[in-house]
């Protein structure tokens, strides 16, 4: 399923998403797309060009956009509402709760520029809470694809699912880790690499970084098991508990606050179903800042090296009772 480690190809999730939306529009006349004056950034401009009568620019009014999408869904349309992840998850939270999540309407919400890599726009436009916010909403499915292939597949899967879906997308080209034969399924985790010493649970772009970390760990004689969770909710509990039992140690990795996101979800499940020594790689409950992608990942501890370090740390503590 996975391409070679040296795959040079990079695709931005937003580009894959934009192309998939166009194809989806060809296949399904009920699909409509809304944007809040960011169509060029979110790549819904492609859908606009291909299906102009089914594209609606709502202007800089995210709350209104969510309400309009909800109204359309009550009439049998399948709206995709687009804006940046930071605005989708916070500016319009109440509208999503009342008009979309509570009545379980068939609205798909795509949050672009998630995580830290939002150009150099800084903390206002980075999105490090969206998974936690969306995950806490009953009825909401939360998808966090790891590459362009998975992002495109997630678009199709979201439409097959009847209900609200939040999809987390990213801005810049990132490594492709799946090939075209990949079958995405909502709620299913994917083993990117088999190993028995420590499990790295990843979501989003951390999948590719975890594979790099796993390569690095081999030199230390540590065989990491990499379990990718493109669906943060509902989480694939079975795969998670099985991996945790097998390796006895878990490191989570996400471009998100360590509170309430993937790490939080994994800790909740393992706390009840198989207590496991854990480390969470992510934003340490802080906002970040403007900077180059490389500098941001380095300063805020989100590189492959940071994941590998967390893995070594838990491996050395295996079997010990931790002093906090």
């Amino acid at each position, binding site marked *: 399923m996975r391409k070679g480690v040296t795959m040079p190809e990079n695709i931005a999730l937003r580009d894959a998403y934009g192309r998939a939306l166009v194809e989806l529009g060809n296949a399904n006349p009920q699909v409509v797309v809304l944007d809040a004056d960011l169509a060029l950034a979110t790549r819904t401009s492609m859908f606009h060009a291909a299906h102009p009568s089914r594209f609606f620019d709502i202007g800089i*009014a995210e709350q*209104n956009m969510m309400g*309009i999408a909800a*109204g359309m869904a009550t009439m049998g*349309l399948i709206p995709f509402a687009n804006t940046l992840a930071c605005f989708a998850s916070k500016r319009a939270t109440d509208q999503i709760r009342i008009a979309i999540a509570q009545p379980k309407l068939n609205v798909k919400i795509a949050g672009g520029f998630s995580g830290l890599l939002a150009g150099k726009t800084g903390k206002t436009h980075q999105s490090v809470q969206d998974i936690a916010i969306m995950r806490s909403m009953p009825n909401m499915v939360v998808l966090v694809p790891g590459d362009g292939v998975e992002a495109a597949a997630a678009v199709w899967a979201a439409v097959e699912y009847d209900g609200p879906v939040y999809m987390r997308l990213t801005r810049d080209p990132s490594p492709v880790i799946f090939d075209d034969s990949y079958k995405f399924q909502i709620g299913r985790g994917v083993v990117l690499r088999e190993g028995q010493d420590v499990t790295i649970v990843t979501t989003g772009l951390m999948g590719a970084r975890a594979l790099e970390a796993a390569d690095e760990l081999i030199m230390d004689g540590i065989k990491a098991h990499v379990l990718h969770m493109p669906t943060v909710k509902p989480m694939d509990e079975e795969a998670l508990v099985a991996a945790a039992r097998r390796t006895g140690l878990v490191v989570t990795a996400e471009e998100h606050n360590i509170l309430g996101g993937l790490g939080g979800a994994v800790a909740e499940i393992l706390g009840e179903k198989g207590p496991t020594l854990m480390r969470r790689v992510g934003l340490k409950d802080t906002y970040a800042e403007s900077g180059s992608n490389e500098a941001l990942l380095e300063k805020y501890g989100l590189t492959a090296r940071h994941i590998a370090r967390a893995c070594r740390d838990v491996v050395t503590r295996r079997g010990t009772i931790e002093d906090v």
Partner: protein
Amino acid sequence: MSSKYSEEELKGIANRLRRRTIEMIYRAKSGHPGGSLSAADILAALYFKVLRLDPARPDWEDRDRFILSKGHAAPIYYATLMERGYFSEQVLSTYGEIDSCLQGHPDMHTPGVDMSTGSLGQGLSVAVGMALAARLKGRDLRVYALLGDGEVQEGQVWEAAMAAAKFKLDHILGIIDHNRLQVDGPVDMVMPIGPIADKWQAFNWHVLEVDGHDVGDIVRSCETAKTLKGKPTMLIAHTVKGKGVSFMEDNAAWHSRALTDAEREKALMELSFEEGRDHA
């Protein structure tokens, strides 16, 4: 699906809705009497004369849509739906009980409820979405949204106002229940919304004004709105909060309050007198 009801009959129905509302709020010991009573004549006119609907087919795709954006007026909305035949009196009596489909604020899984509401300022956006979808699907239907006057303090209302004008949604009729009171007191003191007609006109809407307790005029305004093209229409209905119950009228304290035994008795007596007079 214009109904056979005469203006006199509509007045009687409005009064019956008020009495049911008082009973519901009394029994549940919870609810919003003031803004329910102010909307009684509007709901009677809409559900018994204006809206194209079929209570036997609540999911009929070509029905007109109605959104109670001021979701706290749920008691009178439920009374209206029951009287119109969407569910039984027995269901109505479960209002406020656990496991009832009649939630404190409207939920679209209740027969006849087209949209869930309850957090103010959101209904007009939903109306825009429904109206756009109707146009895209080639369905000839109208979308009605009832807003509170305090509710237009929410910024989202004006986002929706812009969008409805942009898309020229002349099949939307917004109605403002302009009873001039909100939780903390007079709207004009809490946060003035005037000049309200000018605001909607400036947002490129047609504006009509009506006595919100004259069912005949409400019906005629809704018919006039159907002839106004190119823009959505806002009907500003001048109402009295708590209308029909002397001690509730124009009293912000009755925005959200339960009734004592004596208050219930007095309210019902006044309303039965009203109904008797209407039918005299």
